[in-house]
């Protein structure tokens, strides 16, 4: 599935999905460098995996449960001390809907 170089539109699309603001020169650099990396990782397409299940993680543990006990949480002040902006113990952000 080796393909032609990414288009700038594709770079912009992926950057928006990732919520990354890119400068104009970064867009060009991303286009070049990602295209070359994607070229390399596309080599995987040649491996026959038709009968192979995917591995998401390597340990055999499943469904780790804990007893349903009440524990103290972190102090709210401690958690909020790194917040760029907060009010009444809540994170403050710009309006999402006008």
């Amino acid at each position, binding site marked *: 599935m080796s393909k032609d170089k990414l288009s700038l539109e594709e770079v912009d699309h992926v950057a928006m999905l990732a919520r990354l603001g890119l400068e104009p020169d970064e867009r060009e650099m991303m286009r070049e460098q990602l295209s070359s990396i994607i070229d390399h990782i596309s080599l995987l397409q040649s491996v026959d995996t038709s009968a192979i299940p995917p591995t998401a993680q*390597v340990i055999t543990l499943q469904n780790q449960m804990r007893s349903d006990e009440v524990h103290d949480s972190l102090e709210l002040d401690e958690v909020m001390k790194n917040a*760029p902006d907060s009010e009444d113990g809540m994170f403050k952000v710009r309006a999402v809907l006008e």
Partner: protein
Amino acid sequence: MPRTVKTACSKYEQFSSSTTFTRGSEVLVSELIHRTAAELRDLLDRGEISAADVAEAHLERVEAVESHVNAFITVTGDIARKQARAADQRIKDGSAGPMTGIPVGLKDILCTIDAPTTAGSRILEGYVSPYDSSVVARLREQDALFIGKTNTDEFAMGSSTEHSAYKFTSNPWKLDHVPGGSSGGSAACVAANEVSISLGSDTGGSIRQPAGFCGVVGLKPTYGRVSRFGLMAFASSLDQIGPFSRTVEDSALMLGAISGKDPNDSTSVDTPVPDYRSALNGDLTGLRIGVADEYQIEGMDPRVEQSVKTAIAELERMGAEIVPISLPHTEHALATYYIIAPAEASANLARFDGVKYGLSLTQDNLLDTYLETRGKGFGAEVKRRVMLGTYALSSGYYDAYYVQAQKVRTLIKRDFDQAFENVDVIAAPTSPTVSFQKGARTDDPMQMYLSDVFTIPANMAGIPGVAIPCGYVDDLPVSMQFMGRAFDEATILRVAHAYEQNTDWHKARPPLDEAIAASAGN
């Protein structure tokens, strides 16, 4: 008596524990920086030195060399001195643990409640976590001495520590060379005798590769052996915390101190933690060591290849049986890694949004705040990987890239499962080359990624690997690694220790003091 091997490093300052220190003699505080953690433990427990002495000796060393090495983002001398007082009390009370009073460096991606944790990123400048990572909490409980938080590639993404937003760390062997990465600071501070042990994290080689470049021991434990709670996540199915040290014994001690089930990490496994130090018996008789052709690749430095071959021959002389094996999917490991790790990273780094913590560049609306904060807060390599991961997970490409990579991961793991039916340990080079000059690979990401071609497979399979020095090329350390079965760190440590005790490579120290003196003379 260990046999000595003629080494290319005899011109360097060598340190032999039997000649400079004898029991009962007065111990020079400045000399403590040369002691291993195991030796410091004995001296502390016998009351011949205090933890305060240990702290002062190492903080003085940091003062003397740090402007040249730049291993630390934050030096935490006040914390170390406070811990030293508590450690001395604990030793007096007879309640000392293995790490009480031992000077350690912590990769600056491990959360600490009393010092900033930046992950080498501007987006977390000044961030102080509301909780300790579990490994840090364990060391703190024992009153280990926290000397500082070590430099790292931003969010552990890199192989040279040049992607740190804060500083370039130097390789103590040659100051214009890189220490490797991403845990370059943790490797350099051990090699420069600023601490006796440090912790790093290894997602695709980030402990073993810098350990190799800096000529120290670096251990990546089995996935699930050590709790990842409070380790800022890069690729959650691959990340694992482990130690750096100047001897195998010290890494064995640290592994024992940080291993085990943690209720805060549901991927930590509840399997018994053996006494790793007691496994170091020097005996390789009958042990089967696998060597795979797939670890000889184009572009490899032939002198590195030769050093590793010589080391394997040495292991055979010591009684091990060398068994040719095949790991046929090794050639696909790098491509598999550069899909899976960025995909997981793109999800993990979504949390840095300028709302809850870290840098926030507020714009007129929330979307623009995200774009601006993340665009300015992340460096080039992190952006590259977030883009790559987002691309591999995006609609239309998910099956072709991400799912296909997960399937190839299965094949890589099966290679190891089959090999370990027939051998106990696999020996391989740690990296295809020795350390390179700063700036040599920063413009070519693919070239940088190739540094990890031999270390990535162990992360894919979740198995443990330990890197140890096995020679010198151009006055820079060469390293080999031993990979083992899942949760069988004891065996790879036994092999590494037996080899170390039979050779002198680990006794060579970098010519750092000479380099600093020379630069002062200019």
